[in-house]
């Protein structure tokens, strides 16, 4: 069973629908016992970093996430869930979870795209993920496959953890992590077949780890 972290953050239902369409058992929950007992955790999120940290703190889920990572429960952060795994967000100058070294910063509105037009912010729509490092998460996904993004801030994690990059005025990290602790900036749950494949890959890893234990 995959636990989808419930902290009133919007896209949790879409994530659940996507997992269910893949035949994957899942539950939207804020119960620490259920979360820590799951095969894996998806940490979704849309909205503002400060508000999200507030909701997480109010439910004690910041501590639960920390425990989950310490115990090696596989975790996948999506969009805002990806950003707040890092230490700090420029959005409202917010200290975030710090489960991974790095920070989140805003796109500079003066940046220009390949056609010389100033970039639109939020970065909204389909864009390519260049797989810069091999990862189980990318199994069966074509190099350069497009995913659906909606965000105004981008992550700058510790360089050794960067798995994929995307271009929007500049090259930014759109996927990072290591086995069992991953994060993607795009909405895998709304990215058609490549997104569903990525969720499938995450679930397959969770199952393998669960069976090994």
């Amino acid at each position: 069973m995959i636990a989808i972290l419930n902290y009133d953050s919007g896209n949790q239902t879409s994530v659940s629908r996507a997992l269910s369409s893949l035949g994957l058992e899942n539950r939207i929950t804020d119960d620490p016992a259920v979360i820590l007992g799951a095969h894996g955790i998806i940490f979704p999120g849309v909205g503002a970093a400060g508000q999200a940290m507030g909701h997480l703190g109010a439910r004690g889920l910041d501590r639960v996430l920390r425990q989950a990572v310490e115990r090696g429960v596989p975790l996948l952060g999506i969009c805002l869930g990806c950003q707040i795994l890092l230490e700090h967000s420029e959005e409202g100058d917010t200290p975030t979870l710090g489960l991974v070294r790095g920070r989140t910063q805003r796109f500079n509105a003066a940046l220009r795209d390949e056609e010389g037009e100033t970039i639109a912010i939020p970065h909204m729509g389909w864009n390519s993920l260049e797989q810069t490092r091999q990862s189980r998460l990318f199994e069966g996904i074509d190099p350069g496959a497009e995913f659906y993004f909606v965000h105004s801030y981008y992550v700058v994690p510790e360089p050794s953890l960067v798995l994929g990059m995307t271009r929007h005025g500049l090259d930014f990290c759109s996927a990072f992590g290591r086995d069992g602790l991953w994060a993607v900036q795009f909405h895998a749950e709304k990215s058609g077949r490549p997104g569903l494949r990525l969720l499938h890959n995450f679930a397959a890893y969770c199952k393998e780890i669960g069976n090994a234990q």
Partner: protein
Amino acid sequence: MLSKRIIPCLDVRDGRLTKGVKFTGNVDIGDPVETARRYYNEGADEIVFYDITASAEGRGIFLDVVEKVAEAIAIPFCVGGGLGSVADMRAVLLAGAEKVSVNSAAVKNPALISRGAEAFGSQAVVVGMDVQRVTACPSIPSGYEIVIHGGRTPTGLDALAWAGRCEELGAGELCVNSIDADGTKEGYDLPLTRAIRETVGIPVIASGGAGSPEHLVEAVTTGGASAALIASIVHYGEYTIPRIKEYMHRRGCKVRLAW
């Protein structure tokens, strides 16, 4: 680099798909859930639903359609039509939509945009604007006026001023629909699309007038749009989304070709 988005637009009345010309004479053209599934499989980048139902009973049917669509497709979709409060917005977002589109209600009550953005994030709030060409005057210097109630009521608002205001209030995207071009199949209003694009920093969706793939190329190049709405050219099978995308790709536009 971002792909230009191709967004089929589905008008839904009493749970069925319709398509009108210049906002009148809607005809039933099918089941919205099946059509959404078909467009998803054909590579639509996003889908927009407008609920043009008037009755309360019809609204309930529509929410049911939104839920079924959410189960059928794994791409984002937006819902508009008759959303007049944060509670209305919440209902369609909870039913499974990613975005809401507000139009007349936002003109009458601009705080709806900021309240929606605060509650759900700017990314979830699209402002749809119906625009009509008029003779430029001191209160409408651009010569583009915002009209509401499906194009029937002029507001005296300059479209560029309103676009800037929407952005300030927290809109995440603007869908710019030309009343003059809508249903004509003669192409999008490119000067209008470009003028809005130059006024705001958020993505602009061109709407109204698509009759051929070349019109979409124009919208995302000359018009500077991030996305283009299409309706009749795909609803009646004249073109398919893959064919439109292949054409745009050949013409040098970045579009999503694999899905």
